[in-house]
C-alpha cells in the first residue's frame, strides 16, 4: 500500500543542516494498523507530515521515496498531491480543539472536502453524504450537529467530526492519525479507538497510528514501529514486540510504566536515565548510547547501528541485540473487575 524508503528530512541549523528523520524505511499494508511510538521530538509527527508532503518550512525532504500504490509521492507535482490529500490519504491531527476552524459550522468543514475533491456533487448530495458519514462515526443526531460550531461540541464529538472529514471522500486508503486520543478522557478515548478499529476493518484501509502511549498501541496495532531521535529503532508485530522487545530503548519504555499488578505500590519505577539527545548535536555512534544500560564503549560509539532483521519481521537497530538477555516481562493478567 504505502512504502517509505530511506526517507531523510532536514531542517537548517546554525551549524549545517539538522537531520530530523534519518534513513527511515517503513511499509504499511492494506488493512493493517501500524503503531508508531516515540517521544516528543523523535520525528513521529514529522513523518506523518512528510507522507502528506506537508513538512513545515524551513524543513525539507532531502532524500528517499514514498511509494503510494507504486507512485512516488515525492515526485508528484502540487496539483497531483492535492488530489491525493484528503481523498486517498487522510490525516487526523492530535488536537481536536484546534484542528477545526472556529468560524465555520461543522457541516461546512466536512462538505468542504467534497467541494474540493467531488466538484460535480450537488449541495444537497454533499449534505446527505456528510450526514451519512457523521452517523457512521457515531455522531448522534447528525442533522443537528451539522449546523453547529466547533465550540458547541465536546472533545469526543470534535474528534469524530475530524474523522468524518478524513473519511468523507469514501476511498481513503491510508489514514494517518497523529495522537488522536491524547487530548481525550479515558472513557472517550476507548470509544474513539474502538471506532478506529471498526472503521479500519470495515474499509480495509491502512492506518498509521502515531502515539506516545504504549497501551494504545498494545490494544489496537498489528505491527509496531519505535522511533528514537529521528530513526526507527525497532519494528515488529505487536505480540513479539511486547513479549520480547530487543532494543534497550523499547525495553526502558515498557519497564517504566507503572503497572497495577506487577509492582509493589510506591516502589521505585525503573527509569531510563538522562534525556532525549539534541538532534543538532548527536553523538557519534548510537544516539541512545549514553542512556543505555547495555551499551559498551567500543561497540556503540564508533558507528551508527543499522536496522537488522532478527527474526521474521522483527527488525532492530542495535549493535548488541544478540547479547541482550531475554526480556523478563511479567505479563499482566486482564484487569480484574
Amino acid at each position, binding site marked *: 500500500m504505502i512504502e517509505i524508503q530511506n526517507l531523510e528530512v532536514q*531542517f537548517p541549523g546554525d551549524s549545517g543542516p539538522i537531520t530530523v528523520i534519518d534513513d527511515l524505511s517503513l511499509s504499511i499494508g492494506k488493512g493493517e494498523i501500524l503503531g508508531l511510538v516515540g517521544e516528543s521530538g523523535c520525528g513521529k509527527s514529522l513523518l506523518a507530515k512528510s507522507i502528506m508532503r506537508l513538512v513545515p518550512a524551513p524543513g525539507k525532504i532531502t532524500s528517499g521515496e514514498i511509494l503510494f500504490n507504486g507512485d512516488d509521492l515525492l515526485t508528484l507535482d502540487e496539483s497531483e498531491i492535492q488530489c491525493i490529500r484528503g481523498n486517498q490519504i487522510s490525516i487526523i491531527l492530535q488536537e481536536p480543539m484546534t484542528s477545526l476552524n472556529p468560524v465555520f459550522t461543522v457541516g461546512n468543514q466536512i462538505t468542504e472536502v467534497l467541494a474540493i475533491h467531488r466538484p460535480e456533487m450537488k449541495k444537497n448530495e454533499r449534505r446527505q453524504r456528510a450526514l451519512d458519514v457523521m452517523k457512521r462515526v457515531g455522531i448522534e443526531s447528525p442533522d443537528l450537529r451539522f449546523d453547529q460550531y466547533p465550540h458547541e461540541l465536546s472533545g469526543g464529538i470534535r474528534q469524530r467530526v475530524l474523522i468524518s472529514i478524513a473519511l468523507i471522500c469514501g476511498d481513503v486508503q491510508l489514514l494517518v492519525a497523529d495522537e488522536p486520543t491524547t487530548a481525550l478522557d479515558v472513557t472517550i478515548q476507548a470509544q474513539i479507538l474502538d471506532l478506529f478499529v471498526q472503521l479500519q476493518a470495515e474499509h480495509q484501509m491502512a492506518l498509521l497510528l502515531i502515539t*506516545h502511549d504504549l497501551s494504545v498501541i498494545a490494544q489496537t496495532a498489528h505491527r509496531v514501529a519505535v522511533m528514537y531521535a529521528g530513526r526507527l529503532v525497532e519494528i515488529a508485530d505487536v505480540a513479539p514486540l511486547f513479549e520480547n522487545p530487543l532494543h534497550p530503548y523499547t525495553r526502558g519504555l515498557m519497564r517504566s510504566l507503572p503497572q497495577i499488578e506487577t509492582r509493589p505500590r510506591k516502589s521505585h519505577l525503573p527509569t531510563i536515565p538522562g534525556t532525549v539527545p539534541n538532534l543538532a548535536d548527536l553523538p557519534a555512534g548510537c544516539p541512545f548510547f549514553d542512556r543505555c544500560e547495555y551499551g559498551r564503549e567500543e561497540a556503540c560509539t564508533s558507528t551508527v547501528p543499522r536496522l537488522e532483521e532478527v527474526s521474521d519481521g522483527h527488525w532492530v537497530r542495535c549493535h548488541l541485540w544478540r547479547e541482550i538477555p531475554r526480556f523478563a516481562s511479567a505479563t499482566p493478567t486482564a484487569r480484574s473487575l
Partner: protein
Amino acid sequence: MSTDPAHILPESFWSSLSGARRFRLNGMVVAGSLILIPLVLMAVFASFLTFLDPLSIDASQKLLAPSWAHPFGTDHFGRDVLARTMYGAQISLRVGFGSMLLTALFGILFGVISGWYNLADVIIGRFTDSLMIFPGFVLAIMIMAAIGPSELNVIISVTVLYIPRVIRTVRASVVEFRDAEFVEAARTVGVGDFRLLFLHILPKAAGPVMVQLSFGFAWAVLVEAGLSFLGLGTPPPAPSWGSMISDARDFIRSAWWLITIPGCMITLAVLSLNLIGDGLRDMLDPRLQSRGEL
C-alpha cells in the same frame, strides 16, 4: 501534547534556533540607530559643534547661500541655519524624549491599574476610548489652543494623545498574564500582588511598550514640527524645525536651503525612529521575521 512546533523537534533545537534569532540585532534596528545616533549627538553637542548663536540676528548676513562660513546658509534674519538646525534637534528630541518619558510613566501606571482592577478598567477604558476617537493632530491643536504655545505644553499634549496606546498595550499584557500559570504558581508560593505585577508580569510588557514608545517618539517629533509650523508649538524665536519651515515658505524660490534642510531633518528623525520601532516589533514577534530582515 500540542501542535506546537516545539513538539516536532527537541526543544533544545528550537531554543537554539529561535533564541539565537530573537536576540540577534535586527537589520532595521541597526539602520535606524545609524541615522538616529548622529542626530542625538548633534543635538547634545550642539554648543560644541558650532560657535554661532542660533538666535543672533545680523541683517547684513541674511539669505546667504551655503558656504564655508555658513555650511547650511543663513535665513532672512541672517541667522546661521546649521546652528538653528542643531539646536532645533535639541527641541525635537527634548519634546520626543520628555513626552515619551511621561507617557511611559503614566501609561504603565494606568495600564497596570486598568489590567488588574476590573472597576478601574471600566473607567480608564472609557477615558482612553474617548481620547482615541479624535484624530490625533486635531486634538493636539485643540489642546495647544487651550493651554497656549510652549515647549512644555507640546510635551503635555503629545503625552495626552499618545498615552492611550501605551495604556492599552500594558493592559493587554497584564490581562494576558494575570491568570497565566506561572503567575498562579508564584501566588501559591506566597508572592503578593505588588511583586507579582512588577516582577512577573510587567517585564512581559516591556517589549511591546518599547515598540510603542519608539513609534510614539517619531510621532512626537512630527507633532512638534506640525504645531510649530502652525505657530502653536514652540514659540519663536526658538529654532524649532517646524517654525523654520514655516518661516522658509516665503523664500522657497530664492533660498531653497531654508526649507529643505529642516525638512530633511524631520524626515530622517521620523524614519530612523520608525525603523527602530518596526525592527523591535519584528524581534519580538518571530513570525514577522522574514519581512524584517534587511
